[in-house]
């Protein structure tokens, strides 16, 4: 049967419409992801140029950093404490029970440092990023953004760059606090419960000794990348649309996109490095 004989003009319209619908949805999802990546590259490019850091940009960096670190610190410490009991203490306890205390370092590094800390801290920062989404959703593309361009102020430098850098720094800072808190609380719980016989120095040495060179790259890479992408997704989600949506309409979208960004980043970097 020839291809022309199997072609039915009456049915082809429906098929093309189906493909067009699927394609449109796929393109819009891919479009946002590509925009986020493009903004990420833009952040790297502008970050290293001293001329990008005008006074208002530096002021926005300080403000965003204060919001992200200051606002997320207590949550991070509490979360770190809970994970310390649920993971670190449990690991010490059960590995002690089976006589495999020597494995505690590699397990904690592989699970806590490489995987759990980046994702949980990313989710904590995602909660803080709601403020960025709300601020951006008040900007109307036809008004305030044009107004900035007319004043010779690049909206990317003022709105995206400082938030991306602030969240990246905050993510790394909170990640260190999270891991330190989890290890401290877990070890202390083990000592208090009588299940851990090693000293704090031995415990620290075990954990640090289990860290390979790649771990010193993957942890900061994940924390910085996740922080930056959480900020960019929240800013872009806040800016999209005509300005008719309220912040409460965009926040769920920010959360969904941010969660995806965190998971994909963590997975890609774990597999790559």
């Amino acid at each position, binding site marked *: 049967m020839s291809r022309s004989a199997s072609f039915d003009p009456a049915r082809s319209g429906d098929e093309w419409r189906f493909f067009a619908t699927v394609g449109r949805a796929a393109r819009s999802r891919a479009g946002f992801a590509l925009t986020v990546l493009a903004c990420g590259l833009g952040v790297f490019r502008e970050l290293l140029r001293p001329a990008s850091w005008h006074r208002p940009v530096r002021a926005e960096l300080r403000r965003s950093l204060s919001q992200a670190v200051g606002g997320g610190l207590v949550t991070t410490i509490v979360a770190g404490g809970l994970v310390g009991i649920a993971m670190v203490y449990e690991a010490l306890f059960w590995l002690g029970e089976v006589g495999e205390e020597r494995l505690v370092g590699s397990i904690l590094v592989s699970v806590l440092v490489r995987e759990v800390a980046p994702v949980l801290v990313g989710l904590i920062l995602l909660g803080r990023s709601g403020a960025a989404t709300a601020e951006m959703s008040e900007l109307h593309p036809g008004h305030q953004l044009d107004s900035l361009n007319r004043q*010779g*102020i*690049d909206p990317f430098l003022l709105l995206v760059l400082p938030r991306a850098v602030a969240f990246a720094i905050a993510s790394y800072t909170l990640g260190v606090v999270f891991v330190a808190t989890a290890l401290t609380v877990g070890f202390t719980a083990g000592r208090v419960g009588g299940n851990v016989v090693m000293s704090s120095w031995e415990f620290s040495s075990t954990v640090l000794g289990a860290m390979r060179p790649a771990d010193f790259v993957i942890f900061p890479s994940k924390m910085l990348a996740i922080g930056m992408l959480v900020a960019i997704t929240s800013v872009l989600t806040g800016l999209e649309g005509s300005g008719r949506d309220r912040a409460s309409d965009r926040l769920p979208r920010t959360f969904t996109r941010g969660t995806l960004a965190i998971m994909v980043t963590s997975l890609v970097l774990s597999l790559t490095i």
Partner: protein
Amino acid sequence: MRGATPVLELLMAEADDSSALDIVAALSLRLMPGECIVIEAADEAELDAFADLCCGLIPLRAGRVRCLGHDWTDLSHIYAAALRARVGRMFADDTGLPFLDAETNILLPQLHHTNRARDELRAAATALAEEFGLPGLPQGRLSDLAPTDVVRAMLVRAMLSEPTLLFLHEVAPTLRPAILNRVVAMLDRGGAVVWLIEDRAARDLHRYAATQWLRLAEQGLAPTRPTR
């Protein structure tokens, strides 16, 4: 002024089809230092789009736009942004950035483009604000101010940099004397001013300290005889 560089030049400039400026004809204009003109059009969006064209924010299909001797298309985006800092603008429906306070909104362009100390900028802005009828530099958010006070605040922002080229919209009669004082001082300094006015039945040049009245329409820029 013979030999002086024009402050603004439109050389058969045609806006791109995708732009917000709904004019197909080529636009030509030359504004010399010390000149003040009025551009009249049907609505404020068209006037703002025209000002955007003059500031290199609208892509051109043909022709050139020069500001202070610089062709916008020859400038990188960094230098273009720096040149726009020398243009004072007042926009329709300008409300500033909601997440910044009123003072920062007013000082923002100067904080961004210059190294002037914030205290110095604050003092200069306070003096301007008092000239325009405000009790001082507004505190709090711009959204907390009355609409007329927002206009005053945006005028302070536009004039704080002592611009070489100034775009103004129509203002309330109570503001006009203070603005005209500033306009005249600016013209004496060698600057140029463009008033952007919606359709008016009475075209009064003295009202705007202007020397020429032009109408922006589909056919382009055309001189219009003043009424008085």
